[in-house]
């Protein structure tokens, strides 16, 4: 009989009550389990800010035990600078003006460390519709905030270093050049004014002084040019390298009228780039091909571009190939470093800055540059530029 009663769900008053309590306890336990398993902080907050329920994540987030937390209120763990805005929001919630709000704010961990969170509060009303308490969900975003701050600081540092570079450029162009000019002017004046009184050796020494100064001037100009290669995203536009190569080759043949040379070029793709820098890049690469040509054979330069991938990204690989004196591959990497020159020979006047500028330019275009060469077999300079489909090539100025 009793079995049947149980089966049908009948029972005496006491057992009904007991079962109800058991069910409630079970539900309570399930709720608690759910609460504590949650990865975000969760709390029930009385309208005066007092916590009446807190979960484990919340306790861990602020370094207090549950008992400690329940004896505290929202204000006590809030960062002093955020208390005012916090109170204003809660006041609006309490007055029933808003149902929920979400803010990014700071709490203070037991250790004194700042904890950045996203706090979402929603109001719960009682059966009569009166505001009763609030549910708070708290997500720890300290790591994200720190990363953001780190990023902002890095940007500020970069800004500062760019400003310093700019200042350096101005100093280099002005203050470093002035005394050099004085030395050059007066050395020449000496040679001119005392032409007949100075012997051949004195004239040679003056010549060394003047060429030393000239070299220093070129170095300063080179360093200046290098310092001025900057990433300017607004300068990136569809750029036609065909025009740039042709223009630079024209200029070089004008400059070296006695040179026997020929440039062949396959049609080059339009790229999205800083046209001024691409011009500088080809100017240096073609200029090097001319400078390091072999005297006994006519110079041949080939320029082409092929599709390739770099780190899984489609790129254009440009090649500028010559039949000049070439370089030993032992130096293949060193030539891109600042002031690295392989030829001390007077025939090859250089500053050791050109290829450093090329590398900086290519890197600003997220590409790579390298050389493939052998002594007396010519050099092939390769560089990559991201292959972005450019629909409307802009006419080159």
């Amino acid at each position, binding site marked *: 009989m009793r079995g049947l009663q149980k089966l049908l769900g009948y029972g005496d008053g006491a057992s009904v009550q007991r079962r109800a309590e058991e069910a409630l306890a079970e539900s309570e336990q399930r709720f608690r389990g759910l609460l504590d398993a949650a990865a975000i902080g969760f709390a029930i907050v009385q309208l005066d800010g007092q916590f009446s329920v807190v979960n484990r994540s919340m306790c861990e987030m602020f370094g207090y035990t549950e008992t400690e937390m329940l004896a505290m209120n929202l204000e006590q763990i809030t960062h002093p600078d955020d208390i005012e805005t916090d109170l204003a929001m809660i006041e609006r919630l309490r007055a029933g003006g808003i149902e929920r709000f979400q803010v990014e704010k700071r709490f203070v961990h037991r250790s004194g460390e700042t904890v950045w969170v996203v706090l979402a509060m929603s109001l719960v009303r009682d059966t009569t519709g009166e505001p009763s308490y609030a549910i708070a969900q708290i997500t720890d975003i300290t790591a994200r905030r720190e990363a953001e701050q780190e990023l902002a600081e890095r940007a500020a540092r970069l800004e500062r270093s760019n400003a310093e570079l700019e200042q350096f450029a101005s100093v280099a162009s*002005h203050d470093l050049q*002035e005394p050099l000019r004085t030395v050059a002017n007066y050395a020449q*004046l000496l040679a001119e004014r005392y032409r007949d009184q100075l012997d051949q050796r004195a004239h040679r020494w003056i010549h060394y002084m003047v060429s030393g100064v000239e070299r220093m001037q070129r170095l300063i100009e080179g360093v200046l040019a290098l310092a001025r290669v900057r990433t300017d995203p607004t300068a990136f536009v569809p750029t036609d390298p065909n025009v740039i190569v042709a223009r630079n080759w024209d200029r070089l043949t004008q400059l070296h009228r006695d040179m026997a040379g020929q440039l062949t070029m396959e049609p080059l793709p339009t790229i999205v780039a800083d046209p001024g820098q691409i011009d500088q890049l080809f100017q240096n690469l073609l200029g090097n091909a001319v400078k390091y040509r072999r005297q006994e054979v006519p110079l041949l330069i080939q320029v082409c571009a092929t599709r390739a991938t770099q780190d899984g990204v489609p790129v254009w690989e440009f090649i500028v190939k010559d039949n000049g004196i070439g370089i030993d591959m032992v130096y293949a990497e060193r030539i891109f470093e600042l002031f690295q020159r392989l030829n001390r020979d007077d025939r090859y006047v250089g500053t050791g800055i050109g290829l450093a500028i090329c590398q900086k330019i290519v890197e600003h275009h997220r590409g790579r540059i390298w050389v493939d060469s052998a002594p007396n077999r010519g050099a092939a300079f390769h560089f990559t530029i991201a292959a972005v489909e450019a629909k409307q090539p802009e006419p080159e100025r």
Partner: protein
Amino acid sequence: MTSWRDQCESAHETNILHIEDNAADSELLRHLLSDFPELNVSSLSDGAEALGYLRRQMQSVDAVRPDLILLDLNLPGLDGRRILMELRKDPLLRLIPVVVLSGSALEEDMMLAYELGANAYVVKPHELKRFRTVMRAICDFWCGAAAVPGRATR
């Protein structure tokens, strides 16, 4: 209004005021201009002093007035840009041609000088021969070809 134009005689030797703090540059320029016997070059090394001198000269009747000012930009104290501004503000001085001689080839320095009212901006050449050519061109033009108030064209 009496300007220095009215007080000048039409045929006098050409006076050039060179404002330059660097003794080497100042001597070099005087040396280069010594090829022109008709030019009377005086140099001042301090900007404030130069302005004071110019203002005094403009007020006295028989004093020497410059027909051309050669101005260095980088002067200690009152620098060249400031002098240029003061010159262009002064009713007695604002018509004197000013050629800026600068060590800087920077576009921004050049633009600023023209904006402040320079008549020409010249980058001091490193090469002596070039320096001589440039100075000759400046003097030929400003003290010869160009008609300026207070001097009859030759």
